[in-house]
């Protein structure tokens, strides 16, 4: 294409690279930061007072090199793809991944031991492997996804797959500590609820974008109160029931809270009706109260939250130790490697690498470090929502917003749990916690967000008939009356020019989406 000013000369035929200077610069900052962190960690190890068992072991410099190489390769692939994609999202995520790598290098290696062939892999090795796979997935999706039809057209199929996955976990899941979270199929084991997050968002994007007019405009009047159309409360009740089911069967409070929160946020984003949120919160309160009465796990978690010091050596132990870790960090932290995630070989917080990485980081990086990490997550959220707000149509807007919300809400839930602002729920801190399922799914999310940020992707298909539900209930208006969703997106500053039928990779509206 001719218009693209930032376009580099075409290498062989099909490949038209496009410079991504902003991403290059940001990645340089990320690389420098991780290098400094790594050097600091090594220095701390060398000067550590002998006899003081902080559990530090020499970090593997090869890991760092591999990670930085991975970032470089991913960056080059993004450049070669020639797409006008967001340039801030990937470096931000790379920074979070780098922090994770530093932390996992620093924690005792034997927290995780996996044998792969002749090798015995420790915590840092395994996390690096997952980070590689996650970024490969993200980059791969970012480069290859040029159409959203496969997501858009089969939402009920996706929903069915999600429910099937959930039921499979209910029935076949491996039970650990009274929680049924992971599913083992042959050699592969994973946590389906992680994948379920994405499936939920895809389904909601399809459902909400299709039924948006009805959800926005119809009302049921009960006396003086104007309620949303009653038939459309069905999905809310269904979602609520699924969330409660996850709590009752899987004891997975975190996933339930995450799903319901993301659902409510998307419902609000699609409709702009605070009434939905109010009703959702009421349903949540009722559900929470009933669950507290009925499900022992919930009661224990809430009681720990209310007063962890009541059973300081028992149920409250881990939360108290998390708070101690934050307190030890103070304003500036002890410095990488100088904290006490282990004392004389014992871990005060056994789940430090999965549920409490923020506490370990809070100890070693201090309040300043915590602010920086929270800031990184806010940047991820901001990029996601920005991609959403400038998306070409409702489906993509809700999809992008939902994907960003999944990361943001999850980070909030676990961080707030670590800080005793809400009851602790065992979910991962995105990109930082140890865990394959989580890293892979977050890689998928980043890949999809990057792809969605390229406004050169195939434009949305023509609108289909109104949602099945609307047809069944007769609340919908005739299909002809449905305005196309895409035009609604053409805000004042973003007129959408006609596209040429070929070279879609180069298609871009002025001012559109390269992350500026």
């Amino acid at each position: 294409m001719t218009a693209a000013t930032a376009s580099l000369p075409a290498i062989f035929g099909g490949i038209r690279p496009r410079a991504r200077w902003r991403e290059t610069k940001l990645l340089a900052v990320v690389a420098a930061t991780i290098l400094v962190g790594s050097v600091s960690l090594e220095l701390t190890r060398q000067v550590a007072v002998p006899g003081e068992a902080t559990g530090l072991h020499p970090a593997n410099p090869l890991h760092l090199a591999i990670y930085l190489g991975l970032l470089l390769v991913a960056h080059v692939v993004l450049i070669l793809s020639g797409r006008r994609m967001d340039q801030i999202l990937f470096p931000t995520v790379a920074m979070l991944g780098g922090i994770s790598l530093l932390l996992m290098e620093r924690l005792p290696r034997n927290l995780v031991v996996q044998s792969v062939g002749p090798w015995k892999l420790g915590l840092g090795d395994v996390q690096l492997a997952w980070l590689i796979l996650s970024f490969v997935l993200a980059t791969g999706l970012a480069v290859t996804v040029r159409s959203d039809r496969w997501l858009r057209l089969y939402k009920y199929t996706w929903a069915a797959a999600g429910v099937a996955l959930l039921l499979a976990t209910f029935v076949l899941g491996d039970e650990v500590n009274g929680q049924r979270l992971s599913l083992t199929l042959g050699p592969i084991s994973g946590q389906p609820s992680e994948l379920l997050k994405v499936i939920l968002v895809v389904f909601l994007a399809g459902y909400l974008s299709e039924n948006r007019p009805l959800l926005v405009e119809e009302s049921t009047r009960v006396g003086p109160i104007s309620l949303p159309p009653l038939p459309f409360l069905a999905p809310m009740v269904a979602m609520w029931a699924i969330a409660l089911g996850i709590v009752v069967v899987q004891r997975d409070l975190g996933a339930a809270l995450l799903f319901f929160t993301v659902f409510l946020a998307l419902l609000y984003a699609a409709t702009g009706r605070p009434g939905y949120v109010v009703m959702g919160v009421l349903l949540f309160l009722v559900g929470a109260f009933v669950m507290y009465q009925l499900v022992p796990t919930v009661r224990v978690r809430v009681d720990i939250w209310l007063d962890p010091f009541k059973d300081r050596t028992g149920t409250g132990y881990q939360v108290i130790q998390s708070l101690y870790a934050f307190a030890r960090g103070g304003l500036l932290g002890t410095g990488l490697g100088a904290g006490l995630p282990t004392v004389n070989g014992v871990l005060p917080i056994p789940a430090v690498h999965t549920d409490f990485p923020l506490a370990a980081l809070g100890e070693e990086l201090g309040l300043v470090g915590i602010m920086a990490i929270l800031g990184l997550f806010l940047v991820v959220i901001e990029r996601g929502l920005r991609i959403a707000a400038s998306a070409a149509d409702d489906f993509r807007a809700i999809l992008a917003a939902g994907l960003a919300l999944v990361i943001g809400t999850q980070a909030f839930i676990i961080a707030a749990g670590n800080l005793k602002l809400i009851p602790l729920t065992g979910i991962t801190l995105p990109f930082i916690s140890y865990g394959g399922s989580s890293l892979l799914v977050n890689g998928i999310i980043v890949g999809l967000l990057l792809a969605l940020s390229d406004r050169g992707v195939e434009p949305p298909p023509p609108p289909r008939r109104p949602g099945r539900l609307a047809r069944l209930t007769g609340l919908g208006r005739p299909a002809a009356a449905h305005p196309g969703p895409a035009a609604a997106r053409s805000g004042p500053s973003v007129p959408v020019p006609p596209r040429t039928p070929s070279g879609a990779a180069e298609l871009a509206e002025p001012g559109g989406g390269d992350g500026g």
Partner: protein
Amino acid sequence: MRFATSAPARGGSTRRPLGRTIGHVGLALTVAFAGLALGAGYWQVLRSPDMSREPDNPLVIAAARNVVRGQIVDRNGKVLASNKRDANGEPYRVYTDRTFSTVIGYASRQYGTAGLERSWNSQLTGASNGNPIGDALRKFQRNPYDPQKLTLGISSALQQAAVKGLGSDRGAVVMIDPQTGEILALASTPIYDSSAIANPATQDQGFAAARDNKAQPLLTRATQGLYVPGSVFKIVTDVAGLGSGQITPSTTFPQQAQAEKDGLVVSGFRIHEHPGVPSETFDLTTATEWSSNIWYALAGLRTGGDNLASFAARMGFGKPLDFDLPTASSQVTNPGGTGPGGFSDLVELANASYGQAETLVTPLQMALVACTVANQGILMKPHLVIATTGRDGTHKVDPAELGRVIGPDTASAIAAAMQAAVESSIGSQFTTGAKVPGVTTAGKSGTAQLGGTGAPHSWFIGFAPVDHPRIAIAVIVEKGGRGGARAAPLAGDLMSLFFKQAGS
């Protein structure tokens, strides 16, 4: 990509774009994250110092095993607590003077910490030196631990003499420099062997011996023992009565002389005098000399419950004292009373005014009452540690005022009455032996009736010299009899020793 339908062709929507609502969602998340930042700030800054001192904090546990704790020395540099290493090379505590066991406590791997070893743990292990900026910069040093040596204001000679003077009795002695608040002796008996608890080889027997002793040596009586004060509480009534202006040094009560014989009727109850008090009209000085219950009951009634409670509170009653060791909360009355000052009725107020009824005090609290009068009405904060020494040198703990309780003239009037109670021919009958030879001495004895047939607690509080006091003292000997029998002579001996040592 072959689908390139132009978007405007499907335009014409009246629906609003999603940007606005997505903005709302973003705003909500931003607020939520701001909440996280505040939460982190709460734990990492506001709560950081106290959370980092908790005994089950790994920082404290790691320090206990690995750090050679700072020494503790007395005011003359005599070592009270030092360290040895066991067979594995791990350090443990050794205490050289058992008379300090109830002050210093112990630091044991198995049984945790007590006493100063507990309250100053973070400084002794060097995990914190109490200076936020220093703490923040500490991490740049090779060894992050900077154990502090503690210098106590206590003089070993006075401490040993106090414990020896209490002998086999249970009791407590508190000696304070009223002008600075430095504690010069803080004895509680019985004492125990804290080295045995700290030594890994003997810790189990050592701890069991202290714990199972019926006399409760692990209870620091000087700060945690709650006792009926008896007549020494009359000085609190003086402070409240004169401080509030309700009575003056020349206040007399017309009904008092007769009531010395027949008893004083308050709301139908009759309050009796202790034997031997003549039926005369007293003023402040003569009432203090004779330790007249009737005059003080009348003074307390005129002062009022509100004044009595509030002046007592100014001297520390009503809540634990801010001190290096845990303290019990002294009280003028039980909590929950509905009358003025929390007294249930006038009878209770009248009885409390001479130190009976529901009044309960710690020896340290009564020493502070003496300090207040001695220091011209200004109460200094009592403190055990007078200096800390670490890598960056020695930091003195500066004297701190807790506030002015009464004016200097009022304090002088009370001091004069207390001097008469020790030095006049009448007063000295009740305070035998309290007078320091060659030094003007003020004081008040107390005989706390416990009900039943047991011997009363023997009390004395006082200070010397009267015009420019250098030492204030409170002594209690449990079941020691009259104040003049045990407490007053012991106080006199200890103050004499103080002046001999200091060179008067």
